[in-house]
């Protein structure tokens, strides 16, 4: 982990009509770390992702990525600069195969190649890159299935593969293990840890605090669009405000069981 700040949000605000979804949010993510973003439902986590990715234009503030402002850039350009994401609600391209889904993501920077058919030789490198990504997430066997036929667990893997094939330097993951079984969660943890070793930076939204705690170097808590806590996971999770807003006081495991 270096000290380089790869992503910095400067006083970001976002409103939907009268609703303030984000209010003067500041945050910094250092290169190579895994940063967790937690908070109650509707706190603004997904909105924050969307602002970083350029889907929403913030009402105020600036997003800095690798020292440059990316505010106002269109989504695909931000993506090409190295921010890849997965979606809270999975978004496959259902009529394309798994491999094709990854291929388009992998070739999106090849502007000049837009007219070259995938089947030609020049595109072999892209194909290989896509297969590598699929092997990594454990989807190689499904490469030729239409994406629409996958179940949720595989779809989450597909989203990850699509993100990885873009060679991102920052990966935004929105509840990547929601709805996954334990085996899948384990695989996921292993993969993310591996990616971190390779130098990838991750910003992770997760309600499963077990997963978040196990992975994160740093944790941020959002509530009602405001940052209410930040720091080491263990400390953050013990924070009284966080417990009140997010974790709940008495664990259900206690009295009534």
């Amino acid at each position, binding site marked *: 982990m270096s000290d380089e700040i790869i992503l910095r949000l400067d006083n970001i605000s976002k409103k939907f009509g009268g609703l303030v979804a984000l209010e003067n949010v500041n945050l910094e993510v250092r290169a190579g770390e895994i940063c967790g973003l937690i908070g109650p439902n509707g706190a603004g986590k997904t909105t924050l992702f969307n602002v970083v990715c350029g889907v929403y234009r913030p009402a105020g503030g600036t997003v800095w990525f690798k020292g440059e402002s990316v505010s106002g850039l269109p989504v695909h350009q931000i993506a090409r600069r190295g921010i890849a994401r997965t979606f809270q609600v999975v978004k496959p391209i259902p009529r394309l195969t798994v491999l094709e889904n990854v291929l*388009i993501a992998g070739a999106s920077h090849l502007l000049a190649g837009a*007219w070259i058919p995938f*089947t030609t030789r020049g595109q072999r490198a892209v194909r290989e890159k896509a297969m590598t990504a699929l092997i990594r997430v454990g989807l190689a066997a499904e490469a030729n299935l239409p994406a629409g036929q996958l179940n949720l667990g595989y779809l989450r893997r597909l989203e990850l593969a699509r993100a990885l094939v873009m060679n991102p330097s920052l990966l935004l993951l929105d509840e990547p293990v929601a709805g996954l079984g334990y085996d899948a969660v384990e695989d996921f943890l292993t993969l993310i840890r591996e990616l971190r070793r390779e130098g990838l930076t991750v910003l992770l939204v997760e309600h499963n605090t077990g997963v978040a705690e196990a992975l994160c170097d740093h944790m941020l808590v959002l509530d009602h669009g405001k940052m209410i806590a930040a720091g080491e996971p263990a400390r953050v999770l013990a924070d009284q405000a966080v417990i009140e807003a997010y974790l709940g006081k008495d664990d259900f495991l206690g009295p009534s069981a």
Partner: protein
Amino acid sequence: MNYWAVLATTVGIWVLLALSLNIITGEAGQPNIGHAAFFGIGAYTSAILNTKYGVDFWGALIVAIAVSALVGAVLGLISMRLRNDFLAITTIGLNFVTVAVFQTVHYFGGAMGIGGIQPPRIGGLAFGTLEIAGLIWVVVALVVILNRHLQKAWFGYALRAIRDDEAAAAAMGIDVRRYKVLAFVIGTGLAGLAGSIYAHFMTFISAGDFGFNISVTILAMVVLGGRGSIPGVMLGGIVLGMAPEVFRFISDYRLLVFGSILVLVMRFFPSGLLGQGSRLQELLTGFIRREGAGARVR
């Protein structure tokens, strides 16, 4: 002979229009129920250049393509803002407004239309019906090649990604605006091309030739044949393009037959006769696939 050449030309123009709409509606998934507007813009541009400024067919053709594509680009930009049904209604509106402008603005011949358009010529040879039929089908062949290529290239995949999920496409680094606009530009440019040939073939055009019912027919060809399937769309164009002539023997019931075909095909082949997943398509490609089963893997 002349009669067949005329029929071939008319059907060729329909097929060209269907193919051009297919790029917008079939490949990029953008509803466009006002495609005849671009057909008309191409025809009028060509007609005006030819009759008012003495530009010959070939020159007028290029400008006609450019002008339709330009208006198409604007619609493409609008389509970034409007989704689905809103876009569909806007395209209907565009059709009505375009026709209205042709019909009322004096410069475009107003209610009188534009006559005296010169047929194409190369050197001293003026094109007759036969040559025009040849020309249109050469163009159709070129467009099919273009479309085939587009489907296989990354561009085609990008369009399909946009069609299914724009947000996901953008997140994958696809410049949604650029490719959507490009799809509109290509599709409308080709419609303009069809319009230009039409104008020089008919030698007389008026606003009514480009009305909403033409848009509906083009759309029906694409949907009936199968969105995104080149053979399907061509089939749709040929079947519906020939229908008025083929069913002339039951003159009084032609519209009835036309309407019934639409209803029945949509009811029993909702993805079109040769569209993805249609029963007919599966039947036809059944054996082919059996042989090449492994081909898709790697």
